[in-house]
């Protein structure tokens, strides 16, 4: 350490303390930030002078200097350096975005971009630099480089060489130095272009040798610049050089090389993968990703806890590669990974993304709920590594039939959004236990069972929540008391939380309260910064609308969103409940005269975007009806999404949002659970979920959890996707009643106060949580405790000892005559909660002990093992009695409650909690009978088919346990009463009448909860058991060939769930939709004659069941003309060497086409060879491709290699 370095550090620290503390802005910095926001939003500006600007600029330089001191002494990873660069970058960014005219040579945005890169915030660098363009080619070159947009750098450099062919000769550089008095300046410029081009090219291809040469040259150049240039040029060059060397350190090839050490034979495949990451703009890894990969290289299991938008998916992808491709050592068994996601929507998204990125390496298949096996489940039989993406419900159901197959292949378990293991709200969770709908419990139960059966399986938990849950999740996932999560509080973008203040007759104001979790305020001023929006005030609403404060508030949001849309911002209106009500209000606003001007929407011009829009519209009309709110809103470019929407439509809506076709979206939380979409602003009209409990005659209010809110607000301002630099999450708060009727004002005043206090409460929780780490609730412990409390309340037990005795003998039917009937009485709920616990225990006993004869003693042994693997064990200090209760109840289950082994197996396989399963046994044979007798379903009329379904549904329609169940609300009860009508509508019977716009969602809810889910589960359970009963041994892999014979059922049994899923009576339509051959039900139905013709021409004897034989559908599909492949063969160009002796044998080259001649240019800008070509068709994206020239035996050829 050179002398006096400690004193240099002291100087640096004093400046850091004054200017660059995390989340603490100086008054001037805060003013600068606010002013920048005001400029971006085009609203009135705070007072600010040119002198303020130049002071901010010079203090930014100070900070960069100070960062340099930290780097000199502490190295490139110095946290203080990173912090100083970050603040410098922010100061520069705020100046740049305020469009100040400052007396500086290098555009401030470039310096800001470089400083963001050096502070480990590449997304911020990119976001800023993308917004600010320059006419100067050189600045653009640097800007592309600082954005890590290497393809654009190569394009710019290639253009340069194309325009200056004299510079591409080998001797051109040294010759240049002797030409004219400006030679050195020009020489430096040319060499810099060579260097930046070479570095960019070498980065994306992983050519380490030339990369290092380029870096060496860039370093020499920046040192040269220090001597020969004045003002900010040397600074920019020095930063460029540092950024470049940071790119080298963070390049995915570095990680790939280390991964490849697990299996060197796979290196070239890994390189292709890395190259693809560069192609997608993700070749340079973020600090959070590097930390994750570091851990991945060191160990198999860990928890990665970094905020939303920190790039966790890549770590998960590399984990798949490591576990399935590199260290799998069983040549006979294709390895399997299960990727657990929290929602079906997310399963779809993850599937699409993974397929795009790794479809060549793995079979990737998303499974969507349900408990049987379907036509898309070909992976079971495949000999390639497979990734199953599933919700925990589906994975759990699969285990019941295919457990042994899965366990033997399973190598890796990835749990996305793993913080969902923590029950959101204990009271709410307790209710859900009785309803068997608590997801966290299912997750804990499923994962813990896997951990016992397959303790060596690698597992990775991904979570955005760094606070309290991170520690317990990581201990659980690693099964180690001393485990720590990979947890960087890394936010790739800036997230601001605030309020949209609305008042009748005025334009709304934005109040900004929190930035990256910390309060944002200006020292010396009261309250948070404000932005007074310059939009027209919303015209006064008709009385019917303004008399509802909620309606008024939501329309203010809509009005504001419509204006934001005009300035290119993308808005999500996120609802906690009743989306149909909001859609209704918005549709009604469409009729208001004063709103007509802002409702104008032009469908996209680009044909392929137009096609997406039209397709979504067609499907929306198909599933929702011409007059539905969804269709009305889509017509004005507003997308909608909620959990009851048919899956297919939801995916398409997501597509419209992703591609920016619809810039306003109305959605419930199901849209945003882990799904990445480009929103600049998220509005929330409510921070609670409210329902009415008729028994207690009171409102039940559940505040939005901080986890849900964090997840949501993390979706705003996605890196590089958004227009603004900040992701804004705004809670709309009316400042006064909207009604003009005096009688209604007191009520509205109370509502105004409630909205405000909900927000204040949330804000306090958010701030408190940033630092807090505490014990967590865990679902299983909560279940055991809830059961105890309820048993005490109902007078069954008095203390823990009583409780243990009671568990030893009691059956749900002893507690209530209404057990497993969805009854709301206290005793029935207690019985159902017990049944839920029994379900967890039974699954464990059946799965873990499936090979042996189980008695009470062995059950206790399994359960002790299981308890040790639960989240509950790692999350909180457990009381001993809980474990005893859990184990004791398990033993009782085997010995006294369900002593018959066959019954236990049957109940386990149904998938219901056991007592409910026992009740289901009563209808099992009847359902089977209907399925078995539907052997002519293939030729039945629509009406007859509907009758078959009605008979099935009739069996469960009156049982609220496993059968149809709806809320107490009148609307819901009405739909239940009309279930036959809903069923026929859903099966697409043209004669059935559909819902009105305002009852559509209630119908959809009934469809998804009762037809798709409950009826589907009931039918599926029967089919799956029929298969299990017929199969020989538990390792038999299902196949289409053996399906009929094994189950003894006609093909209707195979299709019943698919039909309920797609909303059709016709298996052919379901098949065509499932395979993506057609998009809408009517188009699918139009294809049927083709199939009929084909079938009749191929086969002579066709019986009724053949018309719906999936094997025949598949054969027909194979007979369809395949899509033509465009890149049929690889083109090889013959080349003449012009600028190389060819001794190296291999050269990377870039094509430049000019008038029949292709020049092959080295990435550093030297022409190496030429080819004569008649035409050059590959030119459009040539800069994104890699070409390689091979020189052997005196001849040179060039071919595209990527």
């Amino acid at each position: 350490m050179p002398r006096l370095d400690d004193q240099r550090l002291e100087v640096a620290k004093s400046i850091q303390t004054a200017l660059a503390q995390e989340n603490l802005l100086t008054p001037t910095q805060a003013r600068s930030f606010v002013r920048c926001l005001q400029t971006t939003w085009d609203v009135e500006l705070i007072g600010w002078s040119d002198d303020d600007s130049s002071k901010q600029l010079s203090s930014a330089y100070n900070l960069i200097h100070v960062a340099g001191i930290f780097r000199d002494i502490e190295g490139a990873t110095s946290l203080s350096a990173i912090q100083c660069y970050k603040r410098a970058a922010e100061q520069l960014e705020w100046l740049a975005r305020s469009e100040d005219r400052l007396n500086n040579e290098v555009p401030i945005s470039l310096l800001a971009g470089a400083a963001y890169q050096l502070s480990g915030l590449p997304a911020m660098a990119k976001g800023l630099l993308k917004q600010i363009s320059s006419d100067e080619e050189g600045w653009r070159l640097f800007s592309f480089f600082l954005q890590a947009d290497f393809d654009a750098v190569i394009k710019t450099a290639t253009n340069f060489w194309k325009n200056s062919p004299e510079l591409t000769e080998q001797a051109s550089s040294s010759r240049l130095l002797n030409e004219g008095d400006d030679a050195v300046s020009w020489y430096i410029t040319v060499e810099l272009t060579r260097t930046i081009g070479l570095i960019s090219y070498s980065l994306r291809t992983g050519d380490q040798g030339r990369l290092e040469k380029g870096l060496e040259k860039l370093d020499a150049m920046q040192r040269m610049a220090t001597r020969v240039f004045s003002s900010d040029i040397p600074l920019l060059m020095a930063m460029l050089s540092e950024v470049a060397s940071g790119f080298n350190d963070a390049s995915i090839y570095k990680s790939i090389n280390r991964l490849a050490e697990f299996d060197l034979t796979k290196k070239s495949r890994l390189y292709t993968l890395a190259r693809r990451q560069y192609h997608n703009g993700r070749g340079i890894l973020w600090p959070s990703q590097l930390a994750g990969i570091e851990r991945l290289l060191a160990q198999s299991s860990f928890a990665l806890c970094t905020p939303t938008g920190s790039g966790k998916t890549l770590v998960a992808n590399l984990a798949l590669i490591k576990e399935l491709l590199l260290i799998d050592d069983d040549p006979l068994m294709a390895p399997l990974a299960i990727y657990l996601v929290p929602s079906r929507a997310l399963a779809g998204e993850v599937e699409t993304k993974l397929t795009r990125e790794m479809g060549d390496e793995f079979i990737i298949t998303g499974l969507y709920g349900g408990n049987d096996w379907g036509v898309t489940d070909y992976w079971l039989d495949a000999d390639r590594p497979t990734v199953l993406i599933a919700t925990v419900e589906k994975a759990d159901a699969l285990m019941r039939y295919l457990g042994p197959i899965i366990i033997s292949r399973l190598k890796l378990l990835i749990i996305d959004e793993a913080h969902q293991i923590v029950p959101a709200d204990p009271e709410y969770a307790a209710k859900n236990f009785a309803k068997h709908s608590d997801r966290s419990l299912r997750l804990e139960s499923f994962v813990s069972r896997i951990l016992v059966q397959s303790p060596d399986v690698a597992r990775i938990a991904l979570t955005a929540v760094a606070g309290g849950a991170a520690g317990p999740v990581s201990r659980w996932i690693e099964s180690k008391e001393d485990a720590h999560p990979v947890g960087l509080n890394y936010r790739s973008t800036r997230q601001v939380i605030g309020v949209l203040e609305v008042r009748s007759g005025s334009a709304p104001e934005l109040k900004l309260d929190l930035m990256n979790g910390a309060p944002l305020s200006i020292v010396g001023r009261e309250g948070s910064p404000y932005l007074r929006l310059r939009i027209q005030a919303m015209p006064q609403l008709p009385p019917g609308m303004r008399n509802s404060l909620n309606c008024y508030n939501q329309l203010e949001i809509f009005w504001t969103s419509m204006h934001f849309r005009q300035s290119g911002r993308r808005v999500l209106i996120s609802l906690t409940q009743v989306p149909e009500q909001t859609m209704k209000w918005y549709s009604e606003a469409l009729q208001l005269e004063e709103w007509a001007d802002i409702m104008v929407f032009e469908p996209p011009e680009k044909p392929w975007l137009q096609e997406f829009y039209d397709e979504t519209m067609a499907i929306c009309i198909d599933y929702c009806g011409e007059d539905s709110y969804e269709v009305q809103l889509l017509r004005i470019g507003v997308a909608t999404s909620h959990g009851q929407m048919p899956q297919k439509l939801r995916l398409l809506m997501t597509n419209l949002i992703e591609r920016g076709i619809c810039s306003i979206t109305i959605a419930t939380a199901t849209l945003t659970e882990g799904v990445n979409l480009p929103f600049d602003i998220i509005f929330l009209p409510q921070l609670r979920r409210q329902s009415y409990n008729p028994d207690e005659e009171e409102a039940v209010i559940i505040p939005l959890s901080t986890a849900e809110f964090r997840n949501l607000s993390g979706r705003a301002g996605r890196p590089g996707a958004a227009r603004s630099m900040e992701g804004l999450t705004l809670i709309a708060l009316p400042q006064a009643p909207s009604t003009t009727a005096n009688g209604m004002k007191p009520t509205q005043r109370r509502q105004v106060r409630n909205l405000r206090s909900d927000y204040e409460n949330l804000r306090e929780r958010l701030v408190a949580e940033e630092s807090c780490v505490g014990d967590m609730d865990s679902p299983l412990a909560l279940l055991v405790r809830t059961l105890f409390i309820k048993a005490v309340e109902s007078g069954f037990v008095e203390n823990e000892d009583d409780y243990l005795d009671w568990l030893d003998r009691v059956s749900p039917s002893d507690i209530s005559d209404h057990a497993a009937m969805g009854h709301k009485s206290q005793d029935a709920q207690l019985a159902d909660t017990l049944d839920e616990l029994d379900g967890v225990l039974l699954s464990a006993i059946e799965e873990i002990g499936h090979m042996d004869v189980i008695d009470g003693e062995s059950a206790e042994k399994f359960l002790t093992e299981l308890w040790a693997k639960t989240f509950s064990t790692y999350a909180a200090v457990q009381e001993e009695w809980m474990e005893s209760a859990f184990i004791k109840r398990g033993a009782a289950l085997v010995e006294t409650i369900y002593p018959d082994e066959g019954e236990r197996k049957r109940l386990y396989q149904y998938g219901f909690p056991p007592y409910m399963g026992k009740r289901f046994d009563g209808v099992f044979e009847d359902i089977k009978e209907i399925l078995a007798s539907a052997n002519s379903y293939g030729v039945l009329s629509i009406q007859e088919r509907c009758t078959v379904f009605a008979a099935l549904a009739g069996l469960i329609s009156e049982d609220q346990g496993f059968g149809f169940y709806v809320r107490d609300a009148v609307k819901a009860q009405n739909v239940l009463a009309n279930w036959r009508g809903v069923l026929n509508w859903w099966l697409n019977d043209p004669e059935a009448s559909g819902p009105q716009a305002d009852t559509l969602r209630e119908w959809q809810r009934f469809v998804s909860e009762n037809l798709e889910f409950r009826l589907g589960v009931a039918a599926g359970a029967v089919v799956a058991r029929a298969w299990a009963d017929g199969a020989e041994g538990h390792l038999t892999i299902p196949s289409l060939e053996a399906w009929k014979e094994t189950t003894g059922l006609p093909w209707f049994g195979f299709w019943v769930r698919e039909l309920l899923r797609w909303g059709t009576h016709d298996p052919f339509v379901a098949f065509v939709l499932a395979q993506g051959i057609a998009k809408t039900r009517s188009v699918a139905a139009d294809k049927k004659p083709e199939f009929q013709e084909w079938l009749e021409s191929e086969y002579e004897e066709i019986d009724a069941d053949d018309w719906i034989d999936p094997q025949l559908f598949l054969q027909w599909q194979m007979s369809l003309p395949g899509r033509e492949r465009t890149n049929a063969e690889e083109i090889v160009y013959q080349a003449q060497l012009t600028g190389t002796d060819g001794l190296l044998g291999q050269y990377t080259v870039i094509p430049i086409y000019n008038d029949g001649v292709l020049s092959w240019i080295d990435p550093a800008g030297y022409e190496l060879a030429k080819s004569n070509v008649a035409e050059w068709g590959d030119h459009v994206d040539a800069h994104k491709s890699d070409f390689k020239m091979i020189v052997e035996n005196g001849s040179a050829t060039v071919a595209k290699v990527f």
Partner: protein
Amino acid sequence: MALHTCPPPDLDEWLEKYPSVAGNYGHLLLEQKKAKDVDLFATLVPYFESAHLDARTIFHEFIGIDLHPDAAAGLAEVSYPSSLHLTTLKGFFGEALTGLIVEAYDLVGDHDWKVPVFLFRFHDDAKKYLYTLVRDPEQERQTIGRLGTDFIGISVDEDGEVDRLISGEAKWRKTLTKSAVDDLMLGPKVSGEELRQEGKGVWAELNKEVNPPNGLRELQIALKEIDPDGHAETILSMDRLLSAYSPQTVPKTDLVVIVGKGGASRKERTSFIGWEEVPAAYTAGNDLQVVEVILSDGEELVEELYASLWNDED
């Protein structure tokens, strides 16, 4: 890389000096009294080689890295600085001569100035190529026409800490006349008018100059690279100046050096810039030192001098 350590030679035999100091304003007129000869070169070469050594090393390292894929290491056919264009060399000469004057002569305030490393800056226009990526022939002429370079030197106290800075510009004009010097100092005239362009000219530049001046950061970088231990105190004190949040400064002397051949109408022992009092256009308020160097055979001198640097090696 190396520090500039060669002591300044005595040039009295070659240049007649006419120094004056009035308050915080110093003026020095240097007139060539003897034609260049072998002795003069023998006197100048060691100093100039020392002044250029750092830049030469850096430059050779830079051009020594050839990015052609077939390139073997270090094929520099170009020798710095001798093989550069004359116009560039004139700029370099002006800067090295400035350093020599600052180190050798008694200037305003009587400080002991040191130039530990010469930066040899190009003119601002030279940067344009970098951001336009275009070499425009029109642009080229302008660059030639406007010679000049920033200069920076330091004075250090007994603890090795910087206690004063000297910075400014050295300007070369082929022929020095009253109007050429006025254009240089006050800015060119608006075409066709008597008025001068606002904010142009050396005085305006000096009035705008920030403290710490441009170049200090780069000088510190050079010192860190070359001699971090030997100059630790100097480096540390520069850190204080460069990271100062509430401006912490040391006093500064502004410097203007103009070099060229005296025009036909120029009389001996006369100056273009008045020596009696601070020029009115200079308003920065620092100590100011003006140096006028009248050379009769300047261009030839530059050519020959630079041809003889590192003659044995190149």
